[in-house]
Structure formats: C-alpha cells, structure tokens
C-alpha cells in the first residue's frame, strides 16, 4: 500500500517539477530582445539624397546614458546630446532602415516612433511610394504624426530644442498642442492614409521649419501643406489653416483679433469653444455647402480705453468676430479653389449624404469643386471678460 | 527532425501502455492507424516533401470544374 502511495507522490512531484521547468524555459519567445540591444527610435525623417537620387533616411535614436543628465547641466559638461541622428540610404525605405544597421549594430526599434518627417522635395514629388513602409511595418504605430519639413527633414531633426532633450519629442509636443492657436493641425499616419485612399479628399500635413537665431536653431510650425493625391501642391498659411479648422469643427482655442473703426484700437478674444455643422445641398445641379459655426469667446485684451462691457459694444464685437471668422474661412476656401484641392472633405460629405448623385459627380469633381458655393452662418457669443470689468484708464471728462 | 521523433515516441509512451493494460485491442488498432498516418505526414513535412493539400483540390473542383465562384473584387 505504502509503495503505491509513494509512487503516486513521486509522480506528483515530477509533474510539479516539470511545470516549474516549463515556466522558466518556455516563457518568452525566440524573438525577444533585451533593452540594451535596442536602438529606440523616436523620430524618422525621409529626404532625397542629392548625389544618388536615393532615399536618405534619418532615424533619431535615444542615447540611454545621456538622458540621465539633468537639463540644467546640459549646456555645461560637453555637448550632452541625448539623441543621435543616424542616417542610411537606399532605394526604398525598408532598405534604408536596414542600411542603418551598418552604423548601429542593432536593429532599430520603431515602436516608440512619434514623428515621421518628409522633406519638401519628396513631398512635391509624391509621397505614395514612401508611405507604405510606415503603414505596413509590424512595429510602427498608426498614431505617429506626419510632418513636412520646409527644407530637409535632416535639418529639422538636428535642431536641438531648449527645454526638451529630444527634438522628435519636442516636435510631437508642438504638434499635439495645436489647440493653443489652432494655426495648424495634428495629422497622424492613419488620417493621412485615409485621405490618400479617398478619391476626392486632399490630404494635409503640418509644415515645420527651422529658423536660425544666432547660433541657435529653433523649429517652428509654419502652416499646413496641401496635397493633391500624394503630391504637395501648395500650402495654407496660419489664417487659412484656421479657416479650414473652423469648417471641420476642430478649432480648440486661439486668438481672434478685431480692430475698431476710426483707428480706436483693437480687442483680442480667446476662443473658448467652436462647433461647426456642414450641410451639403444640391440645388438645380449646383452644389451649395451650408456651413454653420457657433463659437464662444472671452474678451482677453483690449487696447482702447473705451468701456466695452456694454450690450451694444458686445453686439458689435460679436459681429466683428463673426466677420473675422468668415474671412478666414473664405481665405481657406479660395486657397483650396486656387490649388483645386478639396481639403474640407466636401466630396466625402456629398458621397455620404447624397450617394446616388455622387456617382455622377465624382469623375468631374475637380471641375465641380470650382463651382461650389459656400454659404456661411456664423454666430459668436462672448461669454466673459476675464478679470476686468472696465479697462484701467483715466476717467474722461463728461462733456 | 529529432524533435519529431521525440514527440512521437512521447505520444507512443503516453497512450500505448494504458491501452494494452486495459486490453482495448480495437482502440489500439485504430490508434496505430492514425499514429502511422500522423507520423508519415510529420516525416514528409520535416523532409520538405510537399504534402498534397486537400483544399487546393477542392478549390480546383469547385471553382474550375463546377464553376461556382464569387466574382473577384
């Protein structure tokens, strides 16, 4: 009897040992890589290599050791760059990526990639052939932000920012906080691919440039690039971009400046909230887009000494703000007509709401786009005047 | 290759003693038939000899011979 129990215990222990062994040996996969062996890429730039006509790929890689140093002493002991822009060339993006291992010895780990910057020359030539890798690669994230550089992407990625250690993170932060002025817009890879796949809609991407300020190189956002299919055909400046965002309903905040007649001064308003509704209408073969905008703002600054907190002044200022918004929208619309690029997505809206009519319209959409009439209905409400009721100015003599 | 042989020896050791002890001869015969088929298939795979795929044959019969097919996008 005891012999049977002994055998049973033995079998039980051997099973337990086997399970424990399996835990240690089988967990993980043969594709595992240690953190020390990774080259963590936080930004990528694609340019055209002038000599060979191939692609010049820049990958911004984080240097582990340098990240430890505090940013205060960054200027002090040596260069203290926390990143390394490593370049590789090749005929296709994937080939360039692998070429970079000639310089790094480790494969690039692109899961943390935040930005993808394309040089302007590539953008004018057409981005279709370079985008596929960024969408298809297994480790890439569709949340990566796409940008177009005013010159070369390499220069943008070399510009070391003042308050951040890594240029790519800095750029990503810049773009994500577009809401402060709403003068440009965040476009990630998925949105860009979605616009590319549409026949009628034109993709847009923010433009970033490098300015030399003495020895320092600062980067700044300079509007949006407009594409037709995949080629960059023009740009929207800040006001035009905001006009576009008004229509898309993506304005988060910003400054509305109105000036008074008779050169009395200006008043600046902070945009608190903006909603938009676009209704496409096809009337007698002519397309009319009804755009309704509702915005709320607050009085943030006034340069005139006049007391503006009265009902008539408010009415006047609300009308003036609506006029400013309307001008921004018309500026955007005129620019898009000049470039013949449907950045607003009007074609898509017609496809969704009037799908049977869209079939006959879509082939001639380029010509039809020029004839679209834009009908705006803008309403601005001033919610508050911040902390001042009246401006701090000397009392005027009552006449 | 070695892994294949090890796995199949393991299968043999796990199943056969129980069957013989309980004198289940019918089960043992069918087990052996399936076991040999599995082993041969595994061998073909390891030796890189192409294993005929029944779905390819079905696809051929249904699409080409009988002509039942959905239009390609």
């Amino acid at each position, binding site marked *: 009897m005891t012999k049977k129990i002994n055998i049973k215990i033995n079998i039980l222990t051997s099973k337990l040992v086997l399970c424990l062994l399996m835990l240690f040996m089988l967990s993980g996969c043969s594709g595992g890589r240690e953190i020390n062996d990774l080259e963590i890429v936080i930004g990528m730039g694609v340019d055209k290599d002038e000599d060979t006509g191939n692609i010049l790929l820049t990958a911004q890689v984080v240097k582990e050791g340098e990240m430890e140093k505090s940013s205060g002493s960054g200027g002090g002991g040596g260069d203290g760059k926390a990143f390394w822009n490593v370049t590789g060339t090749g005929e296709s993006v994937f080939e360039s990526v692998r070429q970079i291992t000639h310089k790094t010895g480790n494969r690039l780990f692109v899961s943390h990639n935040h930005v993808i910057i394309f040089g302007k020359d590539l953008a004018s030539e057409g981005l279709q052939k370079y985008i596929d890798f960024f969408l298809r690669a297994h480790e890439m994230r569709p949340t990566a932000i796409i940008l177009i550089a005013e010159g070369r992407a390499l220069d943008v990625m070399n510009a070391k920012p003042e308050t951040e250690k890594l240029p790519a993170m800095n750029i990503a932060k810049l773009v994500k906080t577009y809401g402060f002025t709403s003068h440009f817009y965040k476009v990630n890879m998925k949105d860009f691919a979605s616009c590319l796949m549409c026949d009628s809609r034109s993709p847009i991407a923010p433009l970033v440039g490098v300015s030399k300020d003495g020895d320092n190189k600062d980067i700044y956002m300079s509007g949006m690039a407009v594409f037709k299919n995949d080629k960059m055909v023009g740009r929207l400046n800040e006001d035009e971009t905001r006009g576009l965002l008004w229509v898309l309903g993506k304005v988060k905040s910003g400054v509305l400046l109105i000036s008074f007649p008779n050169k009395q001064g200006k008043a600046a308003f902070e945009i608190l909230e903006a909603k938009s509704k676009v209704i496409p209408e096809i009337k007698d073969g002519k397309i009319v887009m009804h755009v309704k905008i509702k915005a709320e703002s607050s009085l943030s600054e006034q340069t005139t000494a006049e007391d503006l907190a009265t009902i008539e002044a408010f009415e006047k200022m609300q009308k003036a703000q609506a006029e400013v918004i309307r001008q921004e929208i018309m500026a955007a619309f005129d620019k898009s007509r000049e470039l013949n690029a449907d950045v607003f997505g009007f074609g898509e809206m017609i496809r969704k709401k009037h799908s049977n009519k869209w079939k006959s319209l879509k082939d001639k959409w380029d010509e039809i786009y020029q004839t679209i009439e834009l009908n705006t209905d803008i309403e601005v409400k001033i919610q508050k005047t911040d902390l001042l009721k009246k401006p701090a100015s000397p009392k005027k003599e009552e006449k | 290759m070695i892994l294949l042989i090890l796995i199949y020896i393991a299968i043999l050791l796990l199943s056969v003693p129980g069957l013989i002890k309980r004198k289940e001869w019918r089960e043992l015969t069918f087990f052996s038939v399936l076991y040999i*088929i599995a*082993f041969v298939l595994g061998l073909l795979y390891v030796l890189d000899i192409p294993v005929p795929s029944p779905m390819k044959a079905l696809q051929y019969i249904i699409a080409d011979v009988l002509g039942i097919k959905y239009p390609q996008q």
Partner: protein
Amino acid sequence: MRIEKGNICNMQLLFLITGFVQSSISLIDFTVVITEHQTWMVILAGLVIATPFILSYVALAKRFPGMNLIQINDAVYGRFLGKVISVYYIFFLMMTLSFNILDVGELYATFLMPDTPFIYLLIFFTATCAYAVTKGLEVLARVSHLFVVVGIIVPVSTFLLLIDQMDFSNFLPFFELPLIRVFHGIHIMLSIPFGETIVFLMIMGSVNKTEGMVKNTLTGLLIGTSSLLIAAVRNTAVLGNTEAIWTSPSFQSTRLIDIGTVLTRMDFLIGIAQTVLIFFKCSLFFYALAVAVSQLFGLKSYLPLVLPLAGIEVIIAATVFQSPVDHAAITQDAGIIYSVPLMFVIPPLSLLIAKICGLPKPERGKGV
C-alpha cells in the same frame, strides 16, 4: 452507446455557444475586405438567416436525445449512407480545425511573435488543445464561463476607450456596395460563425435536460453576436475607409488608443482575446472530431485517438495553405461552398426524414 460519459447542464450550453460565436472575432477582420463599412449589417443578416437552421439542429438534438451527430446520421440514413455522410462531416471538422489552428499561427506570426518558427507555434497551440480535450467536455464547459467573460470585456472596453476617435459618419452611405458583395459577406457569416455551430450536434447529446435548450441556444447566439457587432462597429467607426487595407483592423484600431500617454499599446488585449477565444473554439472542434472519429470506428472512448489526431492536424495546418493570402482567397471561395450542404441542407433534411419516418424508433438493443 454513449462515448462521452459526462453531463453538461443547460446553462453551460449557453456559455459554450456564446464563446463559440465570439471566437469568430478574428473573422470580422477577414470579412472587412469584402464588406467594408457594411460589415455590421452583414453580421445581423447572418444571425437572422442562420437562426432557423440552428433551431433545426436543436430540434434534431431534442428528437434524438443523448445521441451525437454520427449516431443520428446512422439512424436517419441507414448504415451505409449514414456513414458516408459522417465521413463528409469528419472531413469538414478536420479541415476547419486546421484552419483555426492556422489562424492562431498567423495571428502570432504577424503581430505578436514574428520571429518564432511557425511550426512551433502550431505545435504548442495544438498540444494545449489536445490536453484540454483529454480532460473531457465537462471541464471545457466549466471553463467556458471565463472565456465568455474575456470575449465580452475586451470588445466593450476597447470600444469605450475609442469613443472619442470614432466618426459615425463612416457608416454612411448605407447601401453603397454592390449586392453581390453583401451576399458574399452574408454567406461567409453564415458559414463560419453560425454554420459551424453544427459541431454542437456532437455536444448537445450530452446535455442532461433538453427542455431549456432552445432558449439557451438563442440567448447564447444573441450575446455572441453582440460581441461581434461591437467589434465590427468599433473598427468601422474608428478606421473609416482605411479599414479594408490593414491585415487586422481590430489590432490597428486598438493601437490608436492613446489616453493620457498611459493607456497606449493596448493591442495586447486583442491578442489575448483572440488567442483565448480561438483556443476555445479549437478545443470544441477537436473534441467533436475525436468523438466523431471514435464513434465512427465504434470505439469505447475517444481518448487514445486525441494525440494522433493532433499530430495530423498540425501537419495539415502547416501545409494546407502556402500563405495568409492563399488562406483568405480559398476560404472566400471554395471554403464556404463545400460546407453549405453540411450546414444548411443535411440537418433540415434529417429532421424532415425523422419526422416523416417517425424516428427515432424505440430502442432495439442498439446501444450498450
């Protein structure tokens, strides 16, 4: 003669069916190529059309209590024709099981473990399934509660996390696609999540009480389909027109979750859910296959056949298709056509013949 000595209660049938339907969550990714933004209506249409057929399976199971599919075939069609039909069913089970194992292999090879050699993924997965099957149906039924919970929590939570990125105008226009594509999509939906519930004819014989079966089956179908719907709606709303280009829209839409820089990279949730659910489906299929083969050969228990069948299945899974592209293309065409008679013709026919001939005849020493 009962091979399975276990009993499952009715409530467990509900969970089994729910988990089974939910495990087709990876099928949604595959159908999107054909039906794009109309996938949700294809799922609903599939449910509506399939329900009468599934109810006919339940009616068959009720009419022949305690018997599984092979026995029913023998009873209705006679010894010879019944066995021929059973062989057809066994072929179907073998092929479909290998497709599902291949699905998991592709899932891991594309997204989660791209550097691991393919055959090892298949071997480990199939070995785990085989182990689960040797434990028996009762254990599978008890564990199904856990899988169903996973299958509900993952789609719902990813849906809620993505609400701010959703654009519901992506569903318009409602009827843009040509009817033939919608029909193709409905056919795929009928064959794969709903038609494959034919395997439950092997399992319903073990349910100990047959009264609540219809209600439980319908409830299970409804809950499972709602999980599928939530996943389909989430994918279409978030990805819009890029839905059709990604290999797996579920993965890509979950990769877009980016809340407060903390909740990022949530695509592991989809990986877990799909693995666990397909494991469940494979175990059920494997169980059905083992019982069917041993019933056909007249054996007393299905246990010895499990391991050799596992070996055969692994090799079939590894060799039947050359690449995911092949897999998708052939499943869209021949894969769903050859199974149509099995799911939609033979069971109602069996029911009709049984009603006309007054089967099952009273026991004439048929069993042990």
